[in-house]
């Protein structure tokens, strides 16, 4: 009996944790449709005025465009680098491999604000500060580890003999890569690209430091928030949330297709 009470208590407790985690997200969406300038309880009337305001704002569109360019390019570079590294790790053992893996895996453990300062200083040293592609490069460094981890997990499921069989049948290493390894990793590659784009789309510290005048959406939000209470943030935030969610769900769908199909049947 005591055991059952405890179990129910713990389940309720999980509910409370979820409540805490999702309260700000839910309220942000609710506030975005609320007419009040400073939202409180009871809520004001339903209104889409904040959406109308942002959709009519040229700066918002400009920021959205920059964000999309950055997210797509950074995720392409990061996924490519992640794939190369995951494959190297999967197939080869070599000296200093620990240092090699640390090189790609460390960036997310360093506080973003420090990366931001270091990137800002470095890019202005090499004469590249304030460019869109400096944000792209910085985000590719930041997100490559995620791509590497996802693709590496997928490679774990590949039968080692699969590649060897291709070589024995006369395929060169390059064509085995093209016809065996890449098709096998495809779901993970798509999934990795989506996740990297989602991370890049939400990153603001580095983007803020190195962007100059090319603001991304999170930097735009940061600058509005610094000013005062402005419900436009909720409307933009809801859009950003939807975009990120779509990317994460897409990543999840692509990544779990692997469990439905037999690995051997896929590579042919």
């Amino acid at each position, binding site marked *: 009996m005591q055991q059952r009470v405890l179990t129910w208590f713990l389940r309720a407790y999980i509910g409370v944790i979820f409540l*805490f985690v999702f309260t700000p997200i839910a309220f942000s969406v609710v506030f975005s449709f609320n007419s009040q300038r400073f939202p409180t309880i009871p809520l004001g009337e339903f209104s889409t005025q904040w959406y109308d305001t942002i959709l009519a704002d040229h700066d918002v569109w400009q920021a959205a465009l920059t964000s999309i360019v950055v997210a797509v390019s950074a995720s392409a570079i990061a996924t490519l680098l992640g794939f190369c590294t995951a494959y190297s790790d999967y197939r080869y053992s070599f000296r200093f491999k620990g240092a090699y893996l640390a090189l790609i895996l460390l960036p997310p453990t360093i506080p973003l604000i420090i990366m931001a300062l270091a990137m800002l200083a470095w890019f202005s040293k090499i004469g590249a500060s304030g460019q869109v592609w400096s944000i792209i490069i910085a985000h590719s460094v930041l997100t490559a580890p995620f791509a590497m981890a996802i693709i590496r997990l997928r490679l774990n499921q590949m039968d080692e003999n699969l590649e060897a069989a291709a070589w024995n049948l006369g395929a060169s290493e390059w064509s085995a890569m093209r016809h065996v390894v890449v098709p096998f990793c495809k779901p993970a590659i798509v999934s990795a690209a989506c996740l990297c784009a989602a991370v890049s789309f939400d990153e603001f510290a580095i983007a803020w430091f190195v962007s100059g005048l090319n603001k991304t959406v999170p930097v735009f939000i940061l600058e509005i928030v610094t000013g005062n209470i402005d419900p436009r943030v909720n409307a933009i935030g809801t859009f950003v949330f939807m975009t990120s969610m779509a990317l994460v769900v897409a990543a999840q769908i692509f990544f779990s297709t692997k469990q439905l199909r037999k690995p051997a049947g896929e590579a042919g």
Partner: protein
Amino acid sequence: MTQPARKRFDAYAMTWRLPIIIWQLLFFVGPLLFMVAMSFFVVKNYRMVEAFEFTNWVKMLGRGYFWDSYFLTLWLATLATVCAMVIAFPAAYALAFKVPDSVRRWAIFLLIIPFFTSYLVRIFSWYVILAETGVVNSILSYVGLGPYTMLNTKFGTIIGYLTLTLPLVVILQTFAMANIDTRLVEAAHNLGCKPFATVYRVVIPLAKTGLIIAALFCFILSFGDFVSPYYLGGSKPPTLPILIIDTTKSGQQWPRAAVVAIMMMITLFAVAFAAISAAYAKRGKS
């Protein structure tokens, strides 16, 4: 298994191995090393001049406000870590032992979602919720309480830190405990160990490594975050990340900001080293 014959220079292998090395040296190691060098540069007439002087170090470390910020940041990050670890534990325990596998998978998926939602927007949402005339206070006023000041306090900062770290801590703690052999827990139970004693004497020691890693991540994230202490904590005195921003954005004092950043890195390395040593240390006799 037949590997193609090894050549002295294997172009194929290098095609996959080299890109990341070059990229990270140029854009990850390079910037960090340059930042260290920059901390010795001097600023003259608002321009940075390459030099090797200890002026910035002496100026920053010799000032009271730096150390105020330093210990405040250390204290807040520690407090956030303790709160997150304690608050997350019952939830992670329940997810590891008290729910079916499918529920656990869904819970973890849901807890990953916040990572991909804008942290800024979530903090702005808290700002509105916790304000003097905000949602929490208007609900409390119905039962005749409040209003309470929650913004610009340490409480606000900690709420912000928890928003950032709690999902991750729950996930990592759950993984740490889900790997425990449940037969050991049952054995302790059958031998008459009370539930809380079982948690304390069996579950926590077995999950130690994972739990310490969770705490470490929580500490690193809180220590480096500038959004919560700025928007919810009021930034008086500023934490180290805010100090970096202020120093960089106003007055072009990049070298001094670099000093702060390096001090942060040193602290994090020390904490990480201590945590990892503790995580993998052999258990002493108890």
